[in-house]
């Protein structure tokens, strides 16, 4: 199967005077439609790795390919378009815009690209909202929802542009275990139904075990790469 993400010899060094190397010669490939997890202790460099994949951060050296296109050489504007069209982000914190309702938040990535929302996209937003079980609260402001609802809104938002890749950094880190189970089954279903590639950072061993591939990062290197 084709690689949707490919990392070649990625090094990441922070700081000018005192240099801290976070990632050492990372070589990684992620296949289309796969469901992957990255685990590792805090400070191991896993979030940095995810940010580099998500083009939010740039490697100090090495090459990044998303969907066969090299991204570490693109300018900010091209990266914005790439992120908008091919990636969805889910963070530990939901980062919803509190000034907007749940549905408006879900539609935000679409509106960033084109302000007018056609009927089919509006219906797709409703479908996503139903999928994550938020039909009742879709017109609530983001601040008027529970933590679980907020995070599920963020998931729906990540999917509105039908991205090829979803990058999730501890998506259930702030949720209780029941909600966590619920969120993961949603993610798993999306992966199955929409052929979306998932790369999920988690510290929860039980969650990681449910994914197709577990990559452990230790001290900036790949310590373990386990495929089911």
């Amino acid at each position, binding site marked *: 199967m084709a690689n949707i993400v490919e990392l070649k010899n990625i090094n990441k060094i922070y700081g000018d005077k005192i240099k801290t190397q976070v990632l050492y010669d990372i070589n990684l490939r992620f296949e289309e439609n796969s469901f992957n997890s990255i685990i590792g202790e805090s400070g191991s460099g896993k*979030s940095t790795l995810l*940010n580099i994949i*998500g083009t*939010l*951060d740039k490697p100090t050296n090495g090459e990044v390919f998303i969907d066969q296109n090299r991204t570490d050489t693109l300018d*900010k*504007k091209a990266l*914005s*378009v*790439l*992120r*908008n*069209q091919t990636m969805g*982000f889910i*963070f*530990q*914190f939901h*980062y*919803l*815009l*509190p*000034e*907007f309702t749940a549905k408006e938040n879900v539609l*935000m*990535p679409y*509106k*960033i*690209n084109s*302000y007018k929302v056609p009927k089919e996209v509006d219906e797709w937003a409703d479908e996503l909202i139903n999928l994550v079980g938020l039909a009742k609260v879709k017109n609530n402001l983001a601040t008027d929802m529970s933590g679980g609802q907020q995070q599920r809104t963020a998931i729906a*938002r990540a999917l509105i542009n039908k991205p090829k890749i979803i990058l999730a*950094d501890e998506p259930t880190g702030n949720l209780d275990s029941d909600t966590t189970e619920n969120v993961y089954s949603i993610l798993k279903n999306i992966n199955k139904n929409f052929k979306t590639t998932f790369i999920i950072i988690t510290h929860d061993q039980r969650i990681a075990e449910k994914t197709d591939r577990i990559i452990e990062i230790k001290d900036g290197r790949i310590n373990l790469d386990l495929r089911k």
Partner: protein
Amino acid sequence: MRLSFDIALRFLKSGKGQTLLIILGISVGVAVQMFIGSLIQGLQISLVDTTIGSSSQITISSVNKDKTIKNWERVVYEANLLSPNIKNISVSADGPANIDYEEDIDSVLIRGFNLDDADRIYKFKEGLLEGSLPFKKDETIIGKELSTKSKAKLNDKIVIVTPSGEQIKLKVTGIFDLEVSSLNDTWVVTNLETAQEILSLDSNVTSVEMQVSDVFKADEIAKQLKYTLSIEDTKVDNWKDQNQSLLSGLNGQSVSSYMIQVFVLVAVLLGISSVLAISVVQRSKQLGILKAMGIKDKDASLIFVFQGLMLGLIGAIIGVCFGFALLYVFTKFAVKPDGNPVVPIFINKGFIALSGMFAILSATIASLIPARLSSKLNPIEVIKNG
């Protein structure tokens, strides 16, 4: 762009306290600027009007030996033709004479006019305390000071000693007060014929006086007049050349008024800019995620520019209303005993529109700093910290 506008609007709506504070700041700035501007303009207009409103603004006089203009009808005709700006043209036959009252002799200035024309400049009718204008020959009106000095009452006769030594009696048909004591003290106003006889001018006059619609163009018009007049041996004076100190006073006043207005604007600008800059920090999470989701830097900046624009617009509108309220209160409560405002307010629509525009413009400029901040914001900094 539409999305930036939507987000800007929501940001403003959700931070109501902050939004109101900025709008209040802009409004007060605009109101103060408008108030001061209108006050100073009113002050200057009334000052110019009291100083030169009732006097000749351009005066054509003769430089030949006997100081007379023979062909004055031609001068009047040419002045009339030159510019629609010229108004209230009036000829006068002036000259010194003496007044002889029983115990003393005093010098006076004989001024002979076509009274209907001259009244438009000097407003004798308004200035008359009693009596009527001296339309007939050997009639005169005199100022109240001269009347007191000479003890001449209405319908009394005063004795004028002409330069050639002749005595002529003039009947006082009115006493005027032109609110300038030197005029009230020395002017003896008659019709043209009387003055021409007293001063032995035949049918000549000594000057042609006029006013202009735009008083500050008097010097230019005087120059044109000098250039086009076909009569030789004339000189053309204008009030601006004769009142340099008034002009420089007005100028100084304008400059200080501009300074105040500029500083008010700068204060408003800094206020908006700092509050908006704080709001970038407050909204950094939202901006971070919008950028992660692919909003372009330009659109992220536009959010703040739109905020500045909207704040400026609303602030300017409210400010202009405030300003009118302030002016209204001022004209109602800061009044002289006669009920007129201490300083007559001049409402200049162009100026008010301009000060509103300036507020909108400066609010927009002020938003450029936060706009730049937001454009520089790197999403991972926000997301990492979250």
